[in-house]
C-alpha cells in the first residue's frame, strides 16, 4: 500500500509551463482522479509520477521517500496507456507474462498467475492468440491485466476508457472500481470526462492550466466548488452561470443580472454578503437540477416569472430554457405539462445557490438567502 | 530517463570504431590517387599520406599523358566517362518512364496483378546464367558496343527497381484526389498527367537518382556488351594496364575515385528513400 506525495512540482517545456507548483497528497489505497480540460497538465503530472518526465522543480515521493533519480524500471508502477500499447506481435499470454518474465519468476509460477489474471479479466479464451487480433474492449482488459499482474505499488491510468464504445465504457467503469477495491492499490486516473471522475473517484483533483483548482471528494467538489471554473467543469448539464451586479444599500440589496432579471436578496443574505465583504460584480451559479417548476417547495426559494423559450428532450430528461427578460436559465425538470412560449413561475433553490467574484472567479461566502 | 554516461561512452566508442573501419579503405584509395609512381609499392616505405602529393595520376587519365611518364593512353578518361554518363542517363530514362507508367497501371487499374511478382523474379538469377542469349540477341540487332544497346539493357535490368519504387509512391497518393478530378470531368490520362504526376514528382526524382546509381555502378553488362568505343568507367578502370607502367595503381585509384563520386553524392541525396528502393517497397523509412 503506497501513498503518493506531489510536492510543489513545476514542469516547464522551454517557455511553456505545463504544471505550476502542484501539491497533492494521495493517501494509500484510494482512487484519485486527475480531472481537467485537454492540455491542462494532468497527463504531464502522471508522466512525472511514472518517471517518464522529470519535474523542473519540486519532487514526487512514494510513502515519503523521494523518487528523483529512480529509474522507470525500478518504480514498480502499473501504467495503462490511452492507446493500450499492447505488444501487438506477441500473444495475449506473452503480454500478460511479460512483467513476470522480466522479474525472472519460475515458469510454473508465471503460468499460474497468467491464467488467474486472464480468468479475472475474462480473456482466458484468447490466451494463445496474437494480441493484435483482440477487439478494442478485450485490449483494454489485457492492458489492465498486464499492468496489474506484477502487483505494482501504484496504478496509473491515462484516459483508458476514451476509446471504448459507450455501453462498454459504463461496464468498465464499474469493473475498474471493483478491481481497485480488490487489488487495494492506489489508483490515479487521468480523464477529461467529469462523469467518469465523479462516479469512480474517492477524491478528485481538478487541474486547469497546470494549477490545482480544487481537491476533494466528488460530492464536495460538486456542492461546494471553490471557483467558477470548478463549478463550470463539474456537473452535467453545465451549471447556470449568470453575471450580474449587487445593487442597493446594505439592508436592501438586490442582484441585478445581465439581461434584466432581478433577484431581491433577503435581509439575512444581505447581511451575509456585507459580513464577507462583497464585490460589486458577482456571478450567480445555480445548477439546472436546482431550478424547478410547479409549487414552491421551501419558503426560502426564490421565485421568478418568465417564459419558456425552448424545450429539449434528452432521452428521459427534459431541458427547459426559461427566459426572464434577456436572462436565460436552464432547468432540468420533470414537470409534466410544459409548452414553448408559456409564461410560468419557476423557483431557484436558495440553499444550492452559489456566488462567485466576477473578476477572480473565487467563490464568495455569501448565499442568496 | 537518459542513458547513463557509461553506456553513452561505449556507444560512441563502437560507432567511432565503425566509422574508422568504413573510412580506412576509402582513405587508402583516395591517398593512392595522389601518389606518384614510386610510392605505389612498399619499396620506398609505404605511408598513408603521399610524401610527394601529385596530380599526375589525374593528369594522366584526363589528358592521356603526364609529365615524367613515358607512357600514354590512346584516349583520355573522357571517353569512358561520357559512355558511362550517356548510357546511365538513357538507361535511367527508359527504366523510369516504363516503370512509372506500368506501375501506375498496376496500382490504379489492376492490370496484370501477376506483373509485380514476375518482375521481382527477374532479380533472382545470376546475370551470367542468361547472358549468352542476350549477347547473341544484341549482336543480332547490331547493338554490341553501341550507346543504345547498353542503354537498352540497362533500362530493362533496372525496370524492376523503378517499377516497385514508383508503385510505393503511387500507393501513397489517396485515390480520393484522383476521384475528385475525375468527377470534375478529367479523363484518366489527364488525371494521371495533371494530378498524380505532380504529386509523386519528388518520388520520381528519387527513383531516377536511385536507378542512375544502379546503372552507373554496373560492371558485368558493360564488360560483355561493349568492346572498344563504349566501355564504361568501371570497366575502363579495371582494365587499365600498360606494358611499362605495370599495374598503374595510382591511375586506377584516380579513376576509381572519379567513378565513385556520383553515386555517393546521389545516394546521400536520396538517403531517406534508400530502404524503400532496396527492399522493393517492402519497407519504408
Amino acid at each position: 500500500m503506497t501513498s503518493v506525495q506531489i510536492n510543489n512540482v513545476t514542469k516547464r517545456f522551454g517557455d511553456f509551463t505545463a504544471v505550476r507548483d502542484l501539491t497533492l497528497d494521495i493517501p494509500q489505497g484510494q482512487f484519485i482522479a486527475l480531472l481537467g480540460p485537454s492540455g491542462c497538465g494532468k497527463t504531464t503530472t502522471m508522466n512525472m509520477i511514472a518517471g517518464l518526465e522529470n519535474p523542473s522543480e519540486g519532487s514526487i515521493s512514494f510513502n515519503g521517500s523521494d523518487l528523483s533519480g529512480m529509474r522507470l524500471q525500478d518504480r514498480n508502477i502499473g501504467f495503462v496507456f490511452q492507446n493500450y500499447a499492447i505488444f501487438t506481435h506477441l500473444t495475449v499470454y506473452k503480454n500478460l507474462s511479460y512483467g513476470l518474465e522480466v522479474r525472472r519468476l519460475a515458469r510454473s509460477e508465471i503460468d499460474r498467475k497468467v491464467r488467474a489474471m486472464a480468468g479475472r479479466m475474462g480473456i482466458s479464451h484468447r490466451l494463445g492468440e496474437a494480441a493484435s487480433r483482440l477487439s478494442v474492449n478485450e485490449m483494454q482488459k489485457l492492458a489492465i491485466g498486464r499492468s496489474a499482474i506484477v502487483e505494482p505499488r501504484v496504478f496509473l491510468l491515462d484516459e483508458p476508457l476514451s476509446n471504448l464504445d459507450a455501453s462498454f465504457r459504463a461496464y468498465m467503469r464499474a469493473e475498474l472500481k471493483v478491481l481497485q477495491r480488490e487489488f487495494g492499490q492506489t489508483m490515479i486516473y487521468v480523464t477529461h470526462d467529469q462523469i467518469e471522475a465523479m462516479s469512480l473517484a474517492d477524491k478528485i483533483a481538478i487541474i486547469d492550466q497546470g494549477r490545482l483548482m480544487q481537491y476533494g471528494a466528488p460530492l464536495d467538489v460538486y456542492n461546494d466548488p471553490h471557483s467558477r471554473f470548478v463549478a463550470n467543469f463539474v456537473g452535467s448539464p453545465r451549471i447556470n452561470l449568470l453575471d450580474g451586479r449587487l445593487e442597493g444599500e446594505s439592508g436592501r440589496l438586490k442582484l441585478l443580472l445581465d439581461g434584466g432579471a432581478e433577484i431581491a436578496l433577503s435581509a439575512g443574505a444581505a447581511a451575509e454578503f456585507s459580513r464577507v465583504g462583497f464585490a460589486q460584480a458577482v456571478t450567480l451559479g445555480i445548477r439546472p437540477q436546482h431550478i424547478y417548476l410547479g409549487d414552491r417547495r421551501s419558503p426560502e426559494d426564490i421565485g421568478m416569472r418568465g417564459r419558456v423559450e425552448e424545450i429539449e428532450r434528452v432521452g428521459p430528461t427534459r431541458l427547459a430554457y426559461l427566459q426572464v427578460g434577456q436572462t436565460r436559465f436552464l432547468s432540468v425538470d420533470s414537470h409534466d405539462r410544459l409548452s414553448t412560449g408559456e409564461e410560468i413561475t419557476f423557483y431557484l433553490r436558495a440553499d444550492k445557490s452559489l456566488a462567485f467574484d466576477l473578476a477572480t472567479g473565487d467563490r464568495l461566502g455569501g448565499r442568496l438567502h | 530517463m537518459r542513458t547513463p554516461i557509461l553506456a553513452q561512452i561505449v556507444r560512441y566508442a563502437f560507432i567511432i570504431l565503425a566509422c574508422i573501419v568504413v573510412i580506412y579503405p576509402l582513405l587508402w584509395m583516395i591517398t593512392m590517387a595522389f601518389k606518384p609512381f614510386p610510392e605505389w609499392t612498399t619499396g620506398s616505405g609505404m605511408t598513408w599520406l603521399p610524401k610527394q602529393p601529385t596530380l599526375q595520376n589525374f593528369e594522366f587519365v584526363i589528358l592521356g599523358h603526364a609529365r615524367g611518364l613515358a607512357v600514354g593512353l590512346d584516349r583520355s578518361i573522357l571517353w569512358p566517362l561520357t559512355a558511362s554518363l550517356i548510357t546511365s542517363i538513357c538507361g535511367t530514362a527508359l527504366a523510369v518512364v516504363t516503370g512509372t507508367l506500368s506501375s501506375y497501371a498496376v496500382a490504379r487499374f489492376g492490370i496484370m496483378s501477376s506483373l509485380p511478382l514476375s518482375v521481382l523474379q527477374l532479380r533472382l538469377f545470376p546475370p551470367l546464367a542468361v547472358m549468352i542469349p542476350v549477347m547473341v540477341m544484341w549482336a543480332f540487332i547490331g547493338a554490341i558496343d553501341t550507346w543504345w544497346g547498353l542503354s537498352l539493357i540497362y533500362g530493362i535490368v533496372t525496370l524492376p527497381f523503378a517499377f516497385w519504387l514508383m508503385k510505393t509512391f503511387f500507393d501513397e497518393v489517396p485515390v480520393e484526389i484522383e476521384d475528385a478530378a475525375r468527377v470534375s470531368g478529367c479523363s484518366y490520362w489527364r488525371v494521371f498527367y495533371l494530378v498524380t504526376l505532380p504529386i509523386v514528382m519528388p518520388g520520381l526524382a528519387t527513383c531516377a537518382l536511385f536507378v542512375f546509381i544502379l546503372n552507373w555502378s554496373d560492371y558485368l553488362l558493360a564488360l560483355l556488351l561493349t568492346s572498344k568505343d563504349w566501355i564504361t568507367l568501371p570497366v575502363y578502370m579495371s582494365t587499365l594496364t600498360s606494358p611499362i607502367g605495370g599495374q598503374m595503381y595510382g591511375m586506377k585509384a584516380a579513376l576509381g575515385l572519379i567513378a565513385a563520386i556520383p553515386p555517393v553524392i546521389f545516394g546521400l541525396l536520396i538517403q531517406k528513400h534508400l530502404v524503400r528502393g532496396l527492399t522493393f517497397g517492402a519497407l519504408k523509412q
Partner: protein
Amino acid sequence: MTEMTAEPVLDKTRQRRRGYWSSVSLDGRKLGFWLAAPAVMMLIFIVIFPLAMQFYLSLTWWTPLDGVRWYRAYESFNIGDNYLRLLTDGALWAALGRTFLLMIVAIPAQFMLGLGLAYLFMEQFVGRKLFYSIILTPMMIVPAVVGLIFFLLFQSTGPVNDTFGLPVSFSWLTDVHRAMLSVIIADTWQWTPLMFLILLAGMLGVPRDQLTAGRLLGASNWQNFRKIILPRIKSVIAIALVLRTVECFKIFDVVFVMTKGGPGVETETISLFLYKKTFADLDWSYVAAIGLTILFSLSLIAACGMAYASMKKN
C-alpha cells in the same frame, strides 16, 4: 415523317474524330493496358527469347568454335547430356561450394554487425545523422571500385600488412587460404551498411509506447530489445536476409576485379565459373544448361518461400 436535317452528317464527322487514342484516355482499362505495354514488352523480350534459346542450346553440344551459327545447333543434338555433365562436374560443384562458403560466412557476419550497429543507433544522440551518413557510404560505392579498393589494400606490399605490424608479410590475395577471406572481408565491408539500414528502419518502426510500456513493467533496454523488438521485426530480418543472400549468390564485380577468381580457382564463385566457361572455354551450350538449372532451382526455392510466407500469414 422523316425529316432530313444536318444532324446525321455532323454525327459522322464527330465519330470519325473520336479516334482510338482519345477513347483510350477515357477508358481506364484501355489506358492501363497501354501504359503497361512497353514494360511488358521489354520483359517478354528479355525473358521469352533468351529462355527459349537457352533451352534449345542446352540440348546440344554446340559451341561457337564449331563454326556454325547458333541456330544450326540442332546439328549436334544431345538431349540431356549437358545436364548429366553438370551433375558430375567437379569444377562446377566446387564453384558452388565456394559460393556457399562465402555466403555462410559473410551473411551472418553482416547480419550481426548490422544488427549491433542498428541497436546503437536506435536512440537519439549527438551526431547521429552524421555518423549515419558515414556508415552508409560503403553501400554506395561502385562494386568494381570496391574490388579495386580491396585489391590495393590487400597487396602484399599494401597497408594492411603494415598496419597490423605482422612480422611475416602475408600475401592476402595470392595465398590460397587468405584469398577467400579477403573477398569475404570486402563483401562484408560493402554490405553490412545495407543490413544496418534495413534493420534500423524496422527497429524504428516499433511504436515507442510499447517500449515504454515494457520499461514500466520493469524491463531493461536489453530485455525490451530481445522480447519486444526482435519478435516484431522478424519479417524485416527475413527480407534483409533474403535480399542479401540472393545478391551474394550472384556476386561478380568485386571478386573479378580483386582476384579474377584466383589464385588458381580459390575464389572462383559460381558467377566467375560461368564467366570462365563462357569466355575462356566457349562452352556455350553447357553454360546454357547450367543457367537453366540454376533458374529452375532458384524459382522453385522462391516459390516455396512465398508459399511458406503466405501460409504463415494465415
